[in-house]
């Protein structure tokens, strides 16, 4: 249900949702921009908080209990637990603190901008019929997803890739909570979290440093196709 | 009536072919001797040789198989059958319906293969050399022969020699480029088939230069006699063939009756004799060519045959 707010510019519901969504996007850019691992983790945590805020706000707007739960989960797990775990991993495994980039910072920013443009271009015509709210949120969410993906492929170290993956997942949740009365939001966010958890667990369990075999180009070049 | 005449013609023809073949060889030798300024043997010498050889008991290698014993007679029989198909002085023999040019070529090929096998049977080097070269030359002679047959077949609408001869005799096809080229081609083929100069030297007794002779080196006595007779018969056969196709005038037909034979027989003798003289002069004029030049020689014959057929297409759109 619409929670008695009329969509469109000037509506407080719209503005704030838009603002929060925009904040998430900006934080994704920040993730792309950062060069230090710890900072990357912190920014990811920040992004999760903003996401939680967005979810809570949507919960208030749509006055649905589920979204509050989703917000709590986002805050608790992704805003606190996982970042702490990651910091721990960094300390435990003595992971090199600097981020190795495959694509330079500025070029990746430029590509990111292009991706956002693409996202808007794709989403705009699709949402003529649906609520403005959804339209904006959707394009933001898609941008966040694409940026996360970009981060995964432009950063060499496993941990940054994991964080990129998790920011993708943040984008997904952002899109999900933005949708009017989408059922099973909680279940879905939990499911996604399981995935994320599995990945983080994987990093921790498999002792994946930046020089884990399968993540190191030089290694795989010898273990080329001919040997498979 | 005509069937009786046909039979009579056939018998006379076969008898004459058998009788005259050695004489033809002797005649050619005499001419060649005269051209070279020698007196040379008498014309009947080949007959004498044949009979002498026939009386001798053959000496056969121990490891000879039955094929070695049978080959000369079988080859002679095949050649004789072919000879019985080629009309000489008169058309319309009993065998006329069978006288297909392809069949004649086939029978000659049969005789050749038999001799080649016999040449390989003892397992000597020279027999092998002769057989291998004989078959190689044949491989190049066949296409030329086939193209000549092709041309004649296209021109006459059949490959039956008797019919072709009849048409050529009755209808004046006029002087055709095709026929001229075909004549040259078939002469080349005939030279190769009869292992005459420049492809092979029948008089040579230096093994390395022999082709046909090398093949039969192991033969003696009556076997050798049969082989010599076969060679002679084959030569006469080819000359008759050429004469029948390219100089068809004056041959008797079943209708014309036996009296015409009085003209036809000498005429045939004259034609063959003329060809023999030409051959003799030609042979005494040139030398034997290297074995590996022969394919080129025959290849030219093939091309001429091809040209003959093509000219035919150009001159008359076959439809």
């Amino acid at each position: 249900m619409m929670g008695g707010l009329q969509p469109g510019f000037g509506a407080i519901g719209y503005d704030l949702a838009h603002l929060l969504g925009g904040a998430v996007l900006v934080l994704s850019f920040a993730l792309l921009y950062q060069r230090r691992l710890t900072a990357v983790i912190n920014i990811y945590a920040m992004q999760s908080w903003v996401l939680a805020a967005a979810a809570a706000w949507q919960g208030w707007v749509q006055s649905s209990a589920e979204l509050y739960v989703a917000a709590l989960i986002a805050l608790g797990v992704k805003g606190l637990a996982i970042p702490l775990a990651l910091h721990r991993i960094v300390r435990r495994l003595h992971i090199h603190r600097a981020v190795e980039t495959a694509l330079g910072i500025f070029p990746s920013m430029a590509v990111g901008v292009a991706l956002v443009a693409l996202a808007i271009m794709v989403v705009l015509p699709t949402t003529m019929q649906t609520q403005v709210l959804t339209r904006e949120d959707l394009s933001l969410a898609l941008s966040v997803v694409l940026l996360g993906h970009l981060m995964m492929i432009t950063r060499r170290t496993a941990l940054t890739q994991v964080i990129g993956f998790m920011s993708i997942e943040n984008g997904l949740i952002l899109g999900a909570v933005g949708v009017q009365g989408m059922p099973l939001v909680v279940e879905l966010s939990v499911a996604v979290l399981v995935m994320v958890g599995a990945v983080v667990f994987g990093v921790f369990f498999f002792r994946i440093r930046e020089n884990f075999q399968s993540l190191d180009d030089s290694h795989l070049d010898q273990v080329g196709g001919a040997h498979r | 009536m005509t069937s009786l005449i046909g039979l009579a013609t056939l018998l006379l023809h076969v008898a004459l072919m058998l009788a005259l073949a050695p004489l033809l060889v002797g005649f050619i030798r005499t001419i060649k001797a005269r051209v070279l300024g020698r007196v040379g043997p008498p014309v009947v010498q080949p007959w004498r040789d044949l009979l002498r050889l026939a009386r001798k008991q053959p000496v056969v290698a121990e490891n000879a198989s039955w094929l070695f014993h049978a080959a000369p007679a079988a080859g002679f029989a095949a050649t004789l059958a072919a000879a019985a198909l080629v009309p000489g002085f008169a058309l319309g023999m009993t065998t006329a319906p069978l006288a297909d040019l392809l069949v004649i070529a086939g029978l000659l090929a049969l005789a050749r293969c038999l001799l080649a096998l016999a040449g390989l049977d003892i397992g000597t080097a020279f027999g092998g050399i002769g057989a291998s070269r004989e078959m190689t030359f044949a491989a190049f002679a066949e296409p030329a022969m086939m193209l000549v047959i092709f041309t004649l077949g296209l021109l006459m609408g059949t490959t039956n020699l008797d019919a072709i001869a009849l048409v050529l005799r009755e209808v004046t096809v006029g002087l055709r480029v095709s026929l001229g080229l075909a004549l040259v081609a078939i002469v080349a083929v005939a030279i190769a088939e009869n292992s005459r100069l420049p492809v092979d030297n029948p008089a040579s007794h230096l093994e390395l230069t022999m082709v046909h002779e090398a093949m039969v080196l192991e033969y003696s006595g009556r076997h050798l006699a049969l082989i010599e007779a076969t060679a002679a018969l084959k030569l006469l056969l080819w000359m008759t063939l050429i004469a029948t196709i390219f100089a068809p005038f004056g041959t008797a037909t079943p209708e014309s009756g036996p009296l015409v034979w009085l003209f036809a027989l000498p005429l045939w003798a004259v034609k063959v004799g003329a060809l023999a003289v030409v051959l003799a002069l030609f042979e005494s004029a040139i030398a034997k060519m290297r074995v590996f030049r022969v394919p080129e020689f025959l290849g030219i014959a093939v091309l001429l045959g091809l040209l003959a057929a093509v000219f035919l297409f150009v001159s008359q759109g076959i439809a």
Partner: protein
Amino acid sequence: MNELRIIIGMLRELFSLPGLVVVVPLATAAWLSFVTDARRGAWINAGAATLAFLLACALPWEPTTGTLLLVEPLAAHMAILTSFIGMSTAWFSRDYIAVEATEGRLDPMRLRDYHALFQTYLGFMLLALLSNNVPGTWGSIEAATIASVLVVGLPRTAAAVEASWKQLLICGVGISMAFFGTTLLYLAAVPVLGSGLPAMSWSQLPAAAPAFPAAMLNLAFVFMLLGYGTKAGLVPLHAWMPDAHAEGPTPVSAVLSGSILNVALFVILRLRGLLDANPDAIAPGPPIMALGLASVLLASFSLWPRRDVKRFFAFSTIEQSGVAAFAFGLGGAAATFAGLLHLTLHTLTKAAVFQCVGRAVQLKGGQNFTDIGGLLVRHRALGLTLAAGIVAVAGLPPFGLFASEFLVLLATVRELPWLVAPLALGLVVGGWALAMRLISLCLGPPTPDRGAAPGWIALVPAWVHLAVVLVLGLAMPGRVAAWFAAIAEAAP
């Protein structure tokens, strides 16, 4: 509160027949995670799988449309197929794993994990097939993926860990795409079906599809196609598949190449139905065909340089999955029938092949082609079964894949004749490579044995599979043919 009512309704559904098909494996999984005795675990595993299969066989007579579960012919067929593979693999793995344990490659704890994860995987696969709502399907596929990742990593070799990590990341990304697609699909459905569960239920989407906002539907399609295409191992999203097949325990390769691929293609097929129904949406066929054709060509050429048996057959799986996807992309009842038949028969055949390969690997103590050769000479039964399996995969008569490939080519000529050229090229190159490996595996001088020779019992599942493939391909009973035809005609 209606939420509660829905939950209760779902619970009630779980204990109807279709629900049990799902519940039995999952419950068994829970039970198995406490069973430490390997032998008992194996027996329980096999028994539960059999029970699931028997229950699944009753599905065609139980068409249901609930809030949680949806049983329509296609889903029922897929469920039967998956549970059958599950059953025969469970029986196969009973003594396969025993050998592994005696060889000391797996300790009891791992064995417990193995059995529990096997049932978890099976259960979620079945749930994905039978679930009536899109997120449900998505969630169960994700769960199944995680389960399979853990199983693949079970042999703690570096290669296995690497493979499972690769699978985790790539499938994770794929899953996230699928999630986004699911959200978009919901968004597309909301205007028509209103917000709430109906907008997410497979049973209601097709009817409403024509009215969906086309653009949103397209976007949803793109994301879901790529997301589930990753699971189906379609090129270029296939990177995880060869490694997972090669490094995981063999029964897992058998199940992986069987089920997860089918489920993914099953979802893609449903999506195609939605887009076909919508007049202004993009044509779904071309993208699916493009991915399928790319898979066929790339995989068939990749077969040649392979040195690892299991990786080799993983690529052949990719090729066959490409053929099926291509057929589904073609559209039309005929092509759908062909694709469905191909999918079914290939699943059965490939499972049989992997079972034989697993045996051969245990026997020869290595999974390189250089280790395995001349099987026919000393182990005739194993060699013959493997040879027959490879012949079947290569699409030679008398086995069923010949008929299905014949039908696919026929349908291609009918729809888009010029596409026959690349497809046939791929099939020839692939078949040739298979023949090459058939010769090198089964014939020639035998390589030394380093392990125990399998008894003929171990081959019975493979024989059953091949027999079924033979019958379905050449002498399909009228009823079954009608059932297939009905599915194809009703298929979205």
